[in-house]
């Protein structure tokens, strides 16, 4: 049995036939070929899969595609304007907030949601917000610096 789900992904209307158990991340990666959203775990802990649904960060491994029917989804692929990076992406580049890049899409999407809620987060607030995003490479030092800088340039 399959069901039809309709949503807007990165500004484009999409429609897909999926099994009811299909997760949002599967829909994005497998049906839509948006492989920038990653899967790093099976217990909803790592945050590599974070995207925005209706403007808020969610773990796309933990939502059924069907739950997002009619929703607005933004993935890492939807942030930059051509070759011009989103200020948060630019801040990660500037401050070396990524190494292997695997956690990065989730980190960036999560960071943008933080700044949308709190335009000037402190270091402690940034670190606490990142509770749901694991990075094995950077030791978080430069991610925290990048988010701090990204928050400033998003505000400006």
């Amino acid at each position, binding site marked *: 049995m399959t069901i039809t789900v309709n949503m807007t992904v990165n500004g484009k209307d999409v429609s897909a036939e999926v*099994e009811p158990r299909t997760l949002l991340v599967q829909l994005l990666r497998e049906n839509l070929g948006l492989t*920038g959203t*990653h899967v*790093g775990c099976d217990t909803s802990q*790592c945050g590599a899969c974070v995207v925005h649904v209706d403007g808020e960060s969610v773990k796309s491994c933990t939502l059924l595609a069907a739950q997002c029917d009619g929703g607005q989804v933004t993935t890492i692929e939807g942030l930059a304007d051509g070759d011009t990076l989103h200020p948060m992406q630019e801040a990660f580049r500037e401050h*070396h907030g990524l190494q292997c890049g*695997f*956690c990065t899409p989730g980190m960036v999407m999560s960071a943008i949601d933080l700044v949308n809620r709190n335009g000037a987060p402190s270091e402690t607030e940034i670190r606490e917000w990142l509770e749901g995003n*694991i990075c*094995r490479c950077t030791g978080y030092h430069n991610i925290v610096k990048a988010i701090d800088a990204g928050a400033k340039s998003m505000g400006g």
Partner: protein
Amino acid sequence: MTEFGIGAAVKRKEDFRFLTGRGTYTDDINRPGQLYAWIVRSPHASADIRSVDTDAAKNAPGVVAVFTGADLAADGVGGVPCGWQVTDKHGEPMKEPPHPALVADRVRHVGDQIAVVIAESKDQARDAAELVEVDYAELSPATSIADALKDGAPQVWDEAPGNICYDWELGDQAAVEAAFGQAAHVASIDITNNRLIPNAIEPRAAIGDYDPASGDYTLYTTSQNPHVIRLLMGAFVLSIPEHKLRVYAPDVGGGFGSKIYHYAEEAIVTWAAGKLQRPVKWTAERSESFMSDAHGRDHVTHAELALDGDGKFLALRVHTDANMGAYLSTFAPSIPTYLYALLLAGTYTTPQIYCNVRAVFTNTVPVDAYRGAGRPEATYLLERLVDVAARVTGIDRVEIRRRNFIPKDAFPYQTPVVVQYDSGDYQATLDTALRHAEWDGFEFRRQEAAERGKLRGIGISTYLEACGIAPSAVVGSVGARAGLYESANVRVHPTGSVTVFTGSHSHGQGHETTFSQLVADQLGVPLESVEIVHGDTAKVPFGMGTYGSRSLAVGGTALIKAMDKIIAKGKKIAAHLMEASEADIEFKDGAFTVSGTDKSTTLAEVALTAYVPHNYPIEELEPGLEEQAFYDPTNFTFPGGCHVCEVEVDPDTGVVEVVNFTAVDDVGRVINPMIVEGQVHGGVAQGIGQALLESCAYDQESGQLLTGSYMDYTMPRADNVPSFHVSHEMTLCTHNPLGVKGVGEVGAIGSPPAVINAVVHALEPLGVTDIAMPATPQRVWQAIQAAQTQAAAE
């Protein structure tokens, strides 16, 4: 220093694709007509397999095939090989049991592979795997080193009596005993190096592909060293000759050692792709990673240090038992021997060292290199023991280190454990670290913390490591079944842009940037005109890959040597073009000049001439401008440094907070300081993880993996670590042209003892003298309670 050359903090070339979701990791790749594999894994730590019934699974929707060990055996598929043979102290080779890709008779750890289900979709494969019926006769497992060494312990392998893989030694035992006889003081310690699970955030994945038209196989895989996988899998497991097998490791999401090894799943999907004539993809779920990626560390050690009346180290005596797990992973035997005992001199002049290591089989996942590999274990042991020695002798922790440091004018310095250090200045890194950490102001901070009810401690570690492993002839003489050189191929295109094919592999290290900087620096080519190609055996001539912090020291040197050849040939061409003698040609910043004149030509013009050789010394020189170099190092490199950690302990909860962390590392010449600092940050976070948070636990009775997910295995999160104070001191490596030493592992090597020394220092006023890693709140709280109970009794 130029804007893009050596020493410049150039922003990374690879970041744009990663930041926009355009990286290509193995699981992002899909091949036309692709099938999906799901591995049936053992739920038992030890059991005989009575039968495997695959009929129901074969008939499940979407299932194309189910294969077991018997199918592989019928096709002559070999076992997964081990790449290093250790010879024991009696001259006997280590016990090397078979490691079939799918086991047919007995499972030996939870997660051991029994069968593969291949279906049209991943969900179908996973669903059908539930229908594979395995009849097990459960056996009792040996799940820890202590269990496995007990009299009458369950035998993991019949051919390894007492579960001993090898009993190995290094050093002059009699001389060490004699030195202990002269000792004024003896410091001793019993120490466990906790077992860790590497947890690169990208789970392992592999796609096998077969082209019936050409008979060529391709394996896409999450590997740190695709040529090594091609060699091991092609030659030993599947009998596919190199020219018919391409191994491609595209973007790889972190490795930390766990993606060095050849894993069974790679062979299974490659073989199945040929068998079914369709691509077969496998991607691990995180819970599979926990029970199938090689784990790290897991040593139990007793060590003693003999000192004279002035606190000078006289001799070190070490006995270590090291867990190998159930099978020998690719480099496992070398980790607790040649990457461990050779480091036991550390930064000190200890004249006599004896080390005995028993490698032990257990019913657990294989253990192999994890960031640092052997060297963190040696460093943790030494740096804890030196703190104990300070306590025993009453000499200050910093002072006892200074008294025993190898002085900076003593290099090259021959240690009693084989290796000869080339350079270092341990007093300098120590001085800088103490200054940055404001060591002298500690008592004031301790007071201030005490007023808040916190116990504050400060700890130090003055570590040394060996990397850039190593001369092939040397490692070959001690059991390596591979060479450890590196290759680089430099192609200057007709219009002067450059492609480099390197055998090193980048999985976070930023080689596309650092190696481009080397080219920009040496050839004067702008960064954007350089492309670094790695990870694909179809493009790169050969390579040993990236591990042991070897990429720059070995791979970077190969690149320099290939560029030297380019410049040498370019000089000949330039001499011809400018009608000058080759001896008068100089090359600098991308221009060939005739010395003493204003005649000049560019690398681009020389390249064009080389490819359009109309006016060219064709009798002496071949056309084209492409050169290759292989570099086999003449020694290890020896980074070292000083880490200082400051913690606050909440005595009511046992929670340890790292409040300051200072690292001063000597990694030789720094090509890109931004990348170097990032490597240290990541390593230190892993070291703090080992010291305070992470530990792999097995249930002793059943052998079940208790820490099998991120719910149970505590990964360091952003709020577990502070911002770090990182800097470097520089002494140059004397035996490679760049003077580089390597930085990938220093953070994970230097930091754990600094953290634990700080925790013990914080608790010392209560009478606590030791705490095991990870120093979890529970452990710390218990240590405090025990110390208080003891104090009350006295």
